[in-house]
């Protein structure tokens, strides 16, 4: 297992007795694409920050590639392997030039100067931002900024990338750019992707969807199963992707649509089977 989470709880205020994360057990395997959903304040970000040691659990343990996040000596190794992209694109770009920002993490690792250039260029190429390498961050669109942030993480050659609502502040184009990039990294380069989002349709390709509620895991299911119970989704204040809604209405009206049809292509295929 790449990441093992055991009995983890966390509270921000040691005096209070309300836990932001309240007893989570979870295993993440290499190469998985996992979605985490849950309404605001359900503890997603707090949990995500525990996966790379930005926050240490009050109780329980988080183990990454055999290293405990409580062990200060392994923190750098853990963080280079578990990259994190945050919500606000403006608040995670450090440098005044795109390529300098991508180099930031690599420089922190103390990688030999002669090798950095190549690493940075290939990370930028991988997210399709190579041609903008000399631009200033404020000249980029939101989606482009997030792709630069992903490149900055990629340059450190991580095993896993966590995107914490990284699409929340973007327009539909920007969102598509980020999701396509994340999916490609997952499928082609085998990077584990943990995608925290409010947009259920971004998760139709996920291996599992984990729903959080009050710091606990409400369910951990493959997308087709997760979307099938719309009553439960509604009680967790989560939406259902449009296509899944259409499919279920069609099904109710006696049109045979397969249970695991989650996207437009699948639906078109099913309907074309009819005649």
């Amino acid at each position, binding site marked *: 297992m790449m990441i093992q989470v055991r009995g983890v709880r966390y509270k921000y205020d040691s005096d209070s007795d309300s836990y932001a994360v309240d007893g989570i057990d979870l295993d993440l395997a290499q190469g998985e694409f996992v979605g985490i959903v849950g309404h605001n304040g359900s503890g997603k970000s707090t949990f995500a920050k525990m996966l790379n040691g930005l926050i240490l659990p009050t109780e329980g343990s988080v183990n990454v590639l055999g290293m405990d996040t409580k062990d200060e000596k392994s923190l750098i190794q853990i963080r*280079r392997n578990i990259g994190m992209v945050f919500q606000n694109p403006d*608040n995670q770009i450090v440098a*005044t*030039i795109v390529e300098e920002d991508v180099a930031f993490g690599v420089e922190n690792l103390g990688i030999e100067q002669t090798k950095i250039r190549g690493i940075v260029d290939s990370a930028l190429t991988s997210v399709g931002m190579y041609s903008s390498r000399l631009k200033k961050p404020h000249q980029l669109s939101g989606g482009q900024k997030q792709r630069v942030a992903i490149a900055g993480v990629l340059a450190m050659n991580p095993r896993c990338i966590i995107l914490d609502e990284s699409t929340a502040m973007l327009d539909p184009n920007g969102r598509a750019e980020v999701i396509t990039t994340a999916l490609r990294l997952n499928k082609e380069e085998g990077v584990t992707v943990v995608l925290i989002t409010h947009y259920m349709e971004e998760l139709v390709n996920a291996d599992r969807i984990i729903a959080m509620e009050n710091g606990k895991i409400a369910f951990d299911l493959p997308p087709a199963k997760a979307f099938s119970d719309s009553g439960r989704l509604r009680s967790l204040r989560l939406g259902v992707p449009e296509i899944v809604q259409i499919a279920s209405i069609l099904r109710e009206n006696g049109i045979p649509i397969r249970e695991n049809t989650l996207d437009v292509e699948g639906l078109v295929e099913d309907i074309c089977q009819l005649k």
Partner: protein
Amino acid sequence: MLQDITIGQYYPADSPIHALDPRTKLKAVFFFIFCLFWVNNIYGFIFAGVFLSSVVLSSKVPVGYVVKGLKPVLFVVSLTMLMSILTIPGDEAFRIFVFKGTWQGLRQAGIMAARIFMLISSASMLTLATSTIDLTDGLEALFLKIPLLKRFAHDMSMMMCIALRFIPTLVDETDRIMKAQMSRGADFQSGSFAQRAKSFIPILVPLFVSAFQRAYELAMAMESRCYTGGEGRTRMKLLEYTKLDYTANVVMVIVFCSMVASGVLVNR
């Protein structure tokens, strides 16, 4: 109105001044300003002026950009000029009512104005012809050579770099907050000075709150990208002196020596 802010305003151009190593340019400005305080006669200022104008011209930065940098100090300089003309004792040059202007005062005022204008022009020239990242790299490299400042070299350049990175972001944000407050009827233009100053509080408070939020998130992002300070850090780009820098050094030694010499040798 907010577009006028020119801190760290870089004017990209393909010129020998732009191509110089930032360390060379920083040293040049430092010594130029130092020499300006040695100069106390017309010959020295001619040297300095010719040097400065040839730098400006060869940098391909429009002269207007450099002149614009002088605007903020214009008022203070005129006021101090007037004060020194009227208060420095000496031989009378002119008289308006009871006020007596002296030759010595005029001379002093001229020297002071020339000094301040050249000082500011040289500093704007540096920022106009040097990208911010080069500037911070150059400062870091120079600080590392100074024993007392060595310890702060990396932190200082990182802070400058982040400040420069966030200036456009915060300017945009201020603009947005101002518009939001105006749309609710806030008025920043009319009223007494005190009233206008007070009307800026509803801008500053949200701006500060958001700046702290940004700082917190940025620190988190930097930490998650393995930042632990300057120790053990490598750099993608290394600063390297070229032939151009050696040439510039020779030119500068000649010009600066002439400036200092003119101050020492020429009889006042």
